[in-house]
């Protein structure tokens, strides 16, 4: 091994030390140019566009054929063409929260409903339709199979996407009050059309788990959402604004949500509720559980934030029997 003398040693130390100092100086200079955090705008939530002429603000379809309910409720809103244009990249977000419940337990969204939506979107010319969720118990692929969703979605021509860790990017929530940034699945923000398809479920914290609660599937650290959920959830909903919310009320999990596990807790309600307004859809769907929008803290908070309306008397509701 070569040896160095004291002079060389000192020289090297000087060079190294100087280099380190210069790097540090450069880095601190760079940080001066870092963007100032923007002044938080108070309530600049873009108001929802009004529905087109003749279309309902909210559609409710009742009957025992889930696919037909989806079709008819969307027709009442002006048809799928209102939401999905040719060449669009569509993401459908059902609720597939665990891998150990088959659809009849009403813990996960009805597969027929999801498949019908996939078919409608593809029929409207969507470039691709992806379906995804991020279960908290069990693997995603398993959960997709158990829920019965992967089979019918693939048959309908849609893709099941296992959510990739790399796509959860720390994202600024400009209108957030309680939370200002969070790791959020980028594709959900970047896609052309996001369709939120929750299943109506009882929930121990908010009373009901519906469209807004379903958005938790596209973020990480969701446990931390549960304290002050009625603040944090609307914060998230200011950034993630589904183009269409379609609540699956074919079966409703009436108690011991969100995972259930007994058929006696499931009620056959044969209803689909659809709207471009997530708050209105949630408020109507709360009635499936014997509640009103005002009873559910997150819906109340969402309405107060201007995310939508929970005043069902002021909107055009079309009820269809199929």
């Amino acid at each position, binding site marked *: 091994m070569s040896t160095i003398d004291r002079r060389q040693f000192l020289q090297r130390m000087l060079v190294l030390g100087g280099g380190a100092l210069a790097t540090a100086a450069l880095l601190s200079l760079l940080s001066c140019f870092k963007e100032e955090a923007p002044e938080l705008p108070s309530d600049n939530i873009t108001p929802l566009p009004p529905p087109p002429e003749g279309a309902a603000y909210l559609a409710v379809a009742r009957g025992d054929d889930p696919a037909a309910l989806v079709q008819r409720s969307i027709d009442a809103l002006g048809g799928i063409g209102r939401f999905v244009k040719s060449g669009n990249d569509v993401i459908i977000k059902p609720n597939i929260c*665990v*891998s*150990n419940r088959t659809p009849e337990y009403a813990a996960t969204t009805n597969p027929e409903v999801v498949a019908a939506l996939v078919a409608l979107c593809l029929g409207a010319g969507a470039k691709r339709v992806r379906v995804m969720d991020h279960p*908290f*118990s*069990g*693997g*995603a*692929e*398993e959960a997709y199979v*158990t829920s019965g969703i992967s089979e019918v979605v693939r048959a309908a021509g849609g893709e099941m996407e*296992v959510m*990739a*860790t*790399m*796509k*959860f*990017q720390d994202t600024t929530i400009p209108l957030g009050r309680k939370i200002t940034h969070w790791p959020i699945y*980028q594709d959900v923000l970047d896609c052309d059309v996001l369709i939120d398809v929750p299943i109506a479920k009882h*929930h*121990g*914290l908010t009373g009901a788990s519906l469209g807004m609660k379903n958005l938790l599937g596209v973020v990480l*650290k969701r*446990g*931390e*959402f*549960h*304290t*002050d959920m009625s603040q944090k959830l609307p914060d998230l909903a200011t950034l993630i604004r589904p183009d269409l919310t379609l609540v699956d009320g074919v079966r409703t999990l009436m108690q*011991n949500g*969100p*995972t*259930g*596990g*007994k058929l006696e807790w499931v009620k056959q309600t044969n209803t689909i509720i659809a709207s471009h307004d997530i708050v209105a859809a949630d408020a109507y769907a709360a009635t499936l559980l014997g509640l009103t929008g005002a009873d559910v803290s997150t819906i109340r908070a969402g309405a107060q934030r201007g995310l939508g309306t929970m005043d069902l008397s002021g909107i055009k509701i079309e009820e269809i029997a199929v």
Partner: protein
Amino acid sequence: MAPKKTRRKWRWTRLSVQILLLVVFLYLLIGSRVGADTLLPSDLFFHLNPLTGLSAMLAEKRFIVPMLLGLLTIGLTLVLGRAWCSWICPLGTLLDWTSLRRFRNAPGRLSHWRHVKYLTLAAVLLGALLGTLSLLVLDPVTILFRTLTSGLIPGMNWLVTRAETYLYRYDAFRGFLDGFDNFIRGTLLPAAEPYFVPSIALIVVFVGILALNTIRPRFWCRYVCPLGGLLGLVSRVSLLRRSVDQDKCNSCRRCARECPVNAIDSEKAYASDPAECTLCLKCVEDCPTCAIAVRPQPQPAEPELEGLTRRQVLGSFGIMLAGVALLRLAPLLRGTEQRRLRPPGTSEDDVMRKCIRCGLCVNICPTRAIHPSGTGADYDGTWTPMVVPRLGYCDYTCNRCGEVCPTGAIPKLSLPEKQQTVIGKAEIDENRCIPWSQNVNCIVCQEVCPLTEKAIELDDMTVTNDEGLEIVVRRPVVVRSRCIGCGLCEHWCPVKGEAAIRVYPDDGEGEHRRRGRS
């Protein structure tokens, strides 16, 4: 003199066999993790390994039928000598490839060091006989498997995921990343991001073993490896051994100088010690006069334990005995150690008696609940599997650890059986729990409990908050009799740092603790 072309064929044959078997090893490792139906049993290498088999049977004092596959390897050694080390052993292959020649400066023999491997072997077997398999941490197959599953692959995964996450911000990369991520997830890299408690320790040990190559090539195999010791003992009576044709030999010393395991003694007419020779056939190919061949030899070789006195042997046994005794003292400390949860259906005793530290269960656990234990307070349990719910919960619909365990240390359980098997019992730390300590609703633990009759219930309690208002708080309470300790609650508990609900080994005393229901 045979033409050069044919004489090099052994080198390429050996390399091909090594590559093939290493690929098989990795294929089985990955295949068992992704749950694919592999063509060969995923524990093939562990069953072929006579050392793990012998130790496990000694420790349990019974025959473990699949472990008898190790007799195949013994049979092979009886014919070919220590060919396992140069042709089959995946760690040996890696050590072949990382010879680190550039960093080595002292040639020459370290003959007396060779005996160390017999002492490690004796220690492993003695330990097994006395009921501890801890020393199997020195087994080469388990070393490589464990390091890969719990050290290198998680490390690689971390790097790849960070790089992907960074690049995904830029639109230009997204198409490529989508395809790339789809391709490697669930195959080369695990779908869920793995973190393991002792990853660093594992990598340090592994790098240490590689670094020993800078002292002598394949230092580990020559001097330390207990499996090498076992096969070396058998090799003395192997049928095919190297022989030198004294008429042809021109004493060029090349074979002695270049033998990767330094088995050839130039002082003894270039004869080799069969316990050291791994039948790599390098000398056969390199010999300029073609004097070397591998031939059947009916006479067993002379033992070469020169330089080891009876006193030294007896002394070593004394030290080993003391060492094992110290290891076995550790259970006495068990009351003071951190909580240690074991995979479903197994007990502390089963683990200590049967676990060969192979890491198959760690590799296969899809939710990364099972971790190789570090040393902790209990040295005797080093690298045995433990459940760390904060890092990974036990999935309600999975029983794969029991199915993959090669020794039955984790029992095979049907799914309904496993779903009633108690890993531990959850207990709430009311000083940390948000609803208990801060009067703020949370319910995450109750929400995630996978049981139909949830083991966590919410009690509505009217309390006075900081502002003096009466409010209703939903406070979680564990129903102890239902809890199976899967750890979903502990895993998802949003309290930072240590969870406010934790799973503890079931000591049967929980009924007397306050607040929890039985």
